[in-house]
């Protein structure tokens, strides 16, 4: 395994670390390279240095891995053109793929990211046919577009569902009730979220029109119809899991197993940034196994839509 600092993009303003497998590289160009995308504003080492460990484990398995910083994050320069971040991250993800294609001859890519990095991975997978697969770790907000009314409605219902789930049906329920009994939770906040949750979750009156499970499934299908594989990977304690269920409703199960192209997995007892060591190990294992699986899969899959149809 070898690591090298690289600069790319226009004008050479994006900074990244390329982790390359050791040993013979014959045929490597046929294997997808992995690109790890910033989790929020955490620089390219990732939360808890997760991206460094993930890159090294993937490289040990024969993958070329690039972890880099979007403009204005970590070691990369701020853009001079004042482009909004939702546009610049797309351009820069494409620049990362262009760089690996031009410099290493790689033609297919696996994208992975935590939190906002997951959203970028999904949108880039939808936009660029070179993406063979994307791991969306604790993704939230990626399935509903940019409509503010829809976003506000989903946000309210996501928070309500999250409060309710954490309190009553998660692995953390007993821990949180113990905290409440000992007076370690703000009683007003608890009461407010518990009282607000049911109306937000079950009232259909306040919901923004024009968006529902069909539209969300269409977003996913836009990716998988091109044989691009998707893994939605959530921590049990993450709010993104509630977004996923709020957006997809009783059709959430259709995302899992769609013609073998789309999977959903939950790491129980873990939080948003995988703080505990056991959860980091589990995350790395799931991502590495999935990458191996996708790399070994044929590039063209019959266009069967399966349960997503």
């Amino acid at each position: 395994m070898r690591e090298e600092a690289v600069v790319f993009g226009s004008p050479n303003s994006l900074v990244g670390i390329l982790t390359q497998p050791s040993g013979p590289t014959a045929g490597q160009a046929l294997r997808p390279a992995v690109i790890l995308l910033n989790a929020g504003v955490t620089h390219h080492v990732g939360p808890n240095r997760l991206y460094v460990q993930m890159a090294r484990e993937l490289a040990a398995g024969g993958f070329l891995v690039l972890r880099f910083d979007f403009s204005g994050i970590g070691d990369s320069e701020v853009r001079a053109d004042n482009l909004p971040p939702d546009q610049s991250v797309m351009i820069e993800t494409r620049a990362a793929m262009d760089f690996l294609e031009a410099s290493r001859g790689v033609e297919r890519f696996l994208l992975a990211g935590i939190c906002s990095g997951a959203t970028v991975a999904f949108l880039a997978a939808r936009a660029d046919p070179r993406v063979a697969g994307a791991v969306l770790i604790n993704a939230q907000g990626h399935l509903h577009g940019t409509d503010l009314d829809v976003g506000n409605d989903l946000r309210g219902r996501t928070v309500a569902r999250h409060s309710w789930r954490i309190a009553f049906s998660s692995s953390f329920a007993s821990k949180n009730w113990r905290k409440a009994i000992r007076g370690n939770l703000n009683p007003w906040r608890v009461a407010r979220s518990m009282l607000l949750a049911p109306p937000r979750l079950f009232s259909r009156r306040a919901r923004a029109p024009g968006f529902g499970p069909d539209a969300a499934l269409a977003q996913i299908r836009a990716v998988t119809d091109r044989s691009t594989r998707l893994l939605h990977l959530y921590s049990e304690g993450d709010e993104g899991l509630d977004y996923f269920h709020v957006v997809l409703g009783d059709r959430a199960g259709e995302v899992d197993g769609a013609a073998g192209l789309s999977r959903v997995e939950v790491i129980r007892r873990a939080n948003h940034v995988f703080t505990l060591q056991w959860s980091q190990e589990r995350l790395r294992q799931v991502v590495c196994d999935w990458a191996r699986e996708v790399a070994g899969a044929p590039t063209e899959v019959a266009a069967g839509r399966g349960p997503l149809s």
Partner: protein
Amino acid sequence: MTRDCGVVLCYPLGHEYIQFHRAFRQLAVLLSESGFPVLRFDFTGCGDSGGDHNDWGIGQWVADVATAIEELRRRSAAARVCLAGMRLGGTIAMMAAAGRPDVDPVVLWDPVVEGRQYLEEITALHRAMLRYAHVIEKPATPAGNAAEILGFPLPAEFIAELEHVNLLATDQRPAGRILVIESNPRSSPEPLRKHLETGGMPVAYHRDFRPELWEWIEDFGRVHVPRPLLNAVVDWTGGGAR
């Protein structure tokens, strides 16, 4: 104007490293705009550098600082080097500066003065995280679970090394000019300042409490860059350097 004094920045450890990367890059940019050649680097087993937590060690990191100084001097016209370190990075900077006439000044930002106290503090933060975050520990194995602190493993050998860290036991002043920054009421570098002033030479002192700076935050996006503190470091460093 390029100055003849370079600056090597020494990062803190673990979650503090992740949360402070942004601030340190800003500091590097500000110092560079003031004419200082600046080198940021990651200690062995940290950030982008080779190795993992099994390679952590105080002695290794002091040697890393020496390597960084050589590299900065090789790449610039710097005749002298300022070491600026935060938390454990400050501790390592002070150790690395000892006996080096080419290192002056030194900036110590909430340095870890006593390793044992630092271990107690981060252990308390870890316990608080276990209570409040959506995490559940794995049941202990018969051999016991390996120690971990706020997202990072903590090897037993490193704990043993940390327990012996005590800057108050050093009798050599690390540099002629020293700035001690206190940004957290719990860091209490006051005894270190008095200790360093034993020889009669004053130590500059800057206090600006921002207790949120090195508390553990699950959402790293909420960590602020303490610009006034960065400006204070740049102003002070530039005040005595050409």
